[in-house]
């Protein structure tokens, strides 16, 4: 179909005009008036279409209900058609969606009688089935006049809309206390004593203790001055490092299988949401096709929204782009949570470098657990994957021996054990755990 901004005759109109004329001329020349009987409907159809031909082009406006949704959530693609002439009969809208966007109706085609139904029923439901930034539309709108004689098609290159599907965080919770960070402000209990608010113990008075800390009840009972001690308060600075150099496995969207990048992004979203909700500062560093993307640390729901939007924009690169270097901007004392499928030794090398700098680092293994089962149909590919997994296990073992904590992603409590270990060791300032 030719996409124009003018009304054009259709093959149906050409058929009506030419069939009517040819049959009529033949009837006259061959002295066969009975052919005029057959020619009459075509002549009427042609005359009808010409008389009711629209002149003005319809005005089409597209809009999307929500520009940002969670993956799996639906929004509506609205199409408004104004007909200045009032001669448009049928309007067809066809929405050709990008990958990972489902439509309702399933084939993305709706049709209305504009005069009778209005343009509201042209609306279509669009539902991103995977996180990411999707360019949706524009819908091709085709209007036709009486008896399908003339047709107008909207320009397809305008009004594309951006639909951001934020990752749905997988269930996550971390009950472990935070590791040591410098500074004495924040909402978390420090492993050290200090002038915080949470009660730690009662001990005998020492020189330099504040008078307001004296516990009079205990002092009267024992006959010696005693003071209450508290745990220091501090904040937690979490840096999420997303390794998008590899996207291993096949993604089936929100309801299907998860690729390694799906697991990474959803896990990162879950961790970010957890720590942001309790008031910790969360930063994001993504290494992928666009190089290293950084979101500086921040707290609160607005910051969380920004983190999720940046996560949704991640594009996987290939391993050749990975130079193994450490991305800049990792603050000392931060808890670095690295999410990676660990299919490249450079990922673990990067984690080791972070630990060598004295930072606490946890590597979350995001390789889909059923990656070898996915290739069950091809024995050679399955065998290659098994070999690759064995190599990877060896590299993980070496990294663990070097002190880098590597844990698989299991949802709630995935990193609790490691966090407790780090917290216990925080007094020594070591960044590695065993």
């Amino acid at each position: 179909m030719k996409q124009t901004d003018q009304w054009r005759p259709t093959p149906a109109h050409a058929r009506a005009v030419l069939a009517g004329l040819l049959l009529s001329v033949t009837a006259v020349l061959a002295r066969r008036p009975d052919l005029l009987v057959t020619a009459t409907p075509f002549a009427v159809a042609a005359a009808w279409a010409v008389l009711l031909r629209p002149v003005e082009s319809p005005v089409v406006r597209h809009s999307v209900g929500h520009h940002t949704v969670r993956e799996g959530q639906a929004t509506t693609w609205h199409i408004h058609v104004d007909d200045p002439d009032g001669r448009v009969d049928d309007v067809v809208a066809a929405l050709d969606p990008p990958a990972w966007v489902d439509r309702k109706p399933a084939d993305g085609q709706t049709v209305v009688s504009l005069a009778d139904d209005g343009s509201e029923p042209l609306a279509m439901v669009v539902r991103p089935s995977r996180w990411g930034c999707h360019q949706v539309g524009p819908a091709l709108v085709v209007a036709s006049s009486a008896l399908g004689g003339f047709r107008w098609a909207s320009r397809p290159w305008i009004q594309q809309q951006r639909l951001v599907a934020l990752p749905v965080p997988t269930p996550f919770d971390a009950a472990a206390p935070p590791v040591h960070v410098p500074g004495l402000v924040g909402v978390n209990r420090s492993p050290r004593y200090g002038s915080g608010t949470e009660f730690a113990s009662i001990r005998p008075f020492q020189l330099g203790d504040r008078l307001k800390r004296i516990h009079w009840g205990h002092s009267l009972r024992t006959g010696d001055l005693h003071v209450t001690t508290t745990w220091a308060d501090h904040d937690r600075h979490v840096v999420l490092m997303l390794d998008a150099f590899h996207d291993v496995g096949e993604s089936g969207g929100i309801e299907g299988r998860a690729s390694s990048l799906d697991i990474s992004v959803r896990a990162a979203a879950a961790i970010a949401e957890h720590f942001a909700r309790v008031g910790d500062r969360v930063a994001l560093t993504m290494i992928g096709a666009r190089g290293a993307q950084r979101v500086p640390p921040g707290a609160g729901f607005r910051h969380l929204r920004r983190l999720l939007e940046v996560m949704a924009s991640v594009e996987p690169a290939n391993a050749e782009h990975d130079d193994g270097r450490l991305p800049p901007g990792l603050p000392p004392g931060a808890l670095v949570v690295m999410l990676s499928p660990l299919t490249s030794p450079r990922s673990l090398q990067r984690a080791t470098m972070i630990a060598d700098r004295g930072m606490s680092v946890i590597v979350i293994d995001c390789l889909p657990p059923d990656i070898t089962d996915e290739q069950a149909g091809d024995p050679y590919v399955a065998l290659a994957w098994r070999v690759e997994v064995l190599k990877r296990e060896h590299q993980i073992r070496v990294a663990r021996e070097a002190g880098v904590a590597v844990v698989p992603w299991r949802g709630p409590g995935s990193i609790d054990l490691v966090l407790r270990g780090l917290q216990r060791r925080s007094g020594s300032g070591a960044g590695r755990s065993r």
Partner: protein
Amino acid sequence: MSEPTVSEPWLLMARARGVGLLLRVVIGVAPMVALGCTLLAADQTLPVVKFVIIALSLVCVVYPDSHLGLLVVVLVGIEWLVTVDDPTTPWSIAVAASMALFHTSMAAAGVVPSSAVWSTAMRRRWARRCVTLMLPAPVMWLVVIAFDNRNSAGSQVLLAASLVTLVIVAVWARSGALAGGRAG
């Protein structure tokens, strides 16, 4: 993951449902009805032309928005012209009606995607217009009967007037069809 866009006409036709499916059945059947009526009115038959018409009408089922329909109509006209000798036979009304049905079905199938759901208003409007196209055919048949009963001799003036009228109509239809609309 969303399905890939299907642009193959065969696959589009396979998705036809409801009114879209009915239209495609009518597109295939209407020329056969016209041929049947021609056969009933005729003294002879042209099997090759019949075969070609049937084959073309089946292609029209897959490609309703094409110019093949014009070829079907012209061939039906030729078949009628060659095989039928009686210009007053009422079967011409049936042929005209089936051709009107064929034309309207193809026009509707060219406008509306095969899998789209038709609203009640659309169904009624297209049915009404199809009947409106059929109605002048019996009137024209009565005119033909009237002319035939007069047994008037051929007139060069009448012939020239008819041809001039047809040329004027053709020019009017052409100018109406090709006049550029205003962009919105």
